[in-house]
């Protein structure tokens, strides 16, 4: 059933596949993010409680969801690489990691910028923010473990172990932090209920979620291409493609 996938384990065909996919992902993500953000910023109604600061949700929530999503994608790639010994899969894992870290950073930053007008401080040890912070550390750990090895085959294997340890731990971290947060509920911080979202607010959010997923896809594909070329720069196909693309 999965036989059609096998040729893509080879780096050259994986590169070609990336090349055909990239423009679709890139342009559709630009389009959807543009529509979603414009809709969210200018045409969606303001929240009756939080006013216009609520509009940060249109990037905060998609980036928070995608930061978790990218981590799972990374772990799946690690698992595939480990079980079937596919080098391209390790490369895909390391292509996704920085993109996921960027999404986590965006989720954290927008969370802080939203927290300042709502809670009065840039940072509170709110459950969601705290687990995003730990997630960022997990991403940085995987990336720096990969960078620490000179032999990149070994590096891919080591980083994939750490990615899998992280993904087993992530739900535990998430629930423990949530539970810890309810335990230490600060007296000064009035917790804002998530507004039950009206449909004219929901649409731009969904569009931006789609756009952010496409963006993660596009960036990961681009970085996977780079990684494939970098690792095989002495192979004829890589030299040929690079020369062709430098002339174009």
């Amino acid at each position: 059933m999965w036989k059609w996938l096998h040729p893509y384990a080879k780096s050259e065909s994986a590169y070609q596949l990336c090349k055909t996919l990239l423009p679709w992902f890139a342009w559709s993500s630009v389009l959807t993010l543009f529509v979603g953000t414009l809709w969210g910023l200018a045409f969606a109604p303001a929240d009756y409680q939080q006013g216009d600061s609520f509009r940060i949700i249109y990037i905060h929530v998609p980036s928070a969801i995608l930061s978790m999503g990218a981590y799972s994608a990374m772990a799946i790639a690690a698992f595939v690489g480990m079980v079937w010994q596919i080098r391209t899969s390790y490369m895909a894992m390391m292509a996704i990691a920085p993109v996921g870290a960027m999404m986590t950073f965006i989720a954290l930053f927008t969370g802080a910028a939203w927290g300042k007008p709502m809670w009065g401080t840039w940072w509170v040890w709110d459950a969601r923010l705290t687990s995003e912070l730990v997630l960022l550390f997990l991403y940085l750990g995987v990336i720096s473990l990969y960078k620490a090895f000179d032999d990149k085959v070994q590096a891919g294997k080591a980083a994939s172990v750490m990615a899998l340890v992280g993904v087993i731990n992530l739900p535990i971290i998430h629930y423990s932090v949530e539970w810890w947060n309810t335990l230490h509920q600060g007296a000064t911080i009035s917790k804002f209920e998530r507004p039950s979202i009206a449909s004219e607010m929901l649409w731009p959010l969904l569009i931006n979620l789609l756009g952010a997923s496409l963006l993660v896809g596009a960036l990961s594909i681009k970085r996977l291409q780079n990684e494939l070329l970098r690792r095989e720069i002495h192979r004829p196909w890589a030299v040929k493609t690079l020369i062709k693309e430098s002339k174009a």
Partner: protein
Amino acid sequence: MTFQFESWQAFWQMGGYGFYVWLAFGVSLLAVLALVYESIWTKQQLIKAVNAQIARKQRIKQAKMQSNKQTESTTEHDKSEQEVGRA
């Protein structure tokens, strides 16, 4: 689906929350652009590296041909060896 603000001024002010909203959107955009730029820059570096690799191969080839020529006229043997070394 109507424009929610009375004027552009009001749009930029975001009901008093302008700073936070634009800060969040701006920094997010910057983060994305930085990663996009880094990805494209890496590709450029790879192209440069491959060109250097090709140029190096050619230099080695030329030096070898030259040294072959010059070993026939054995006078400048030492100099050609230096050239190979440099290449």
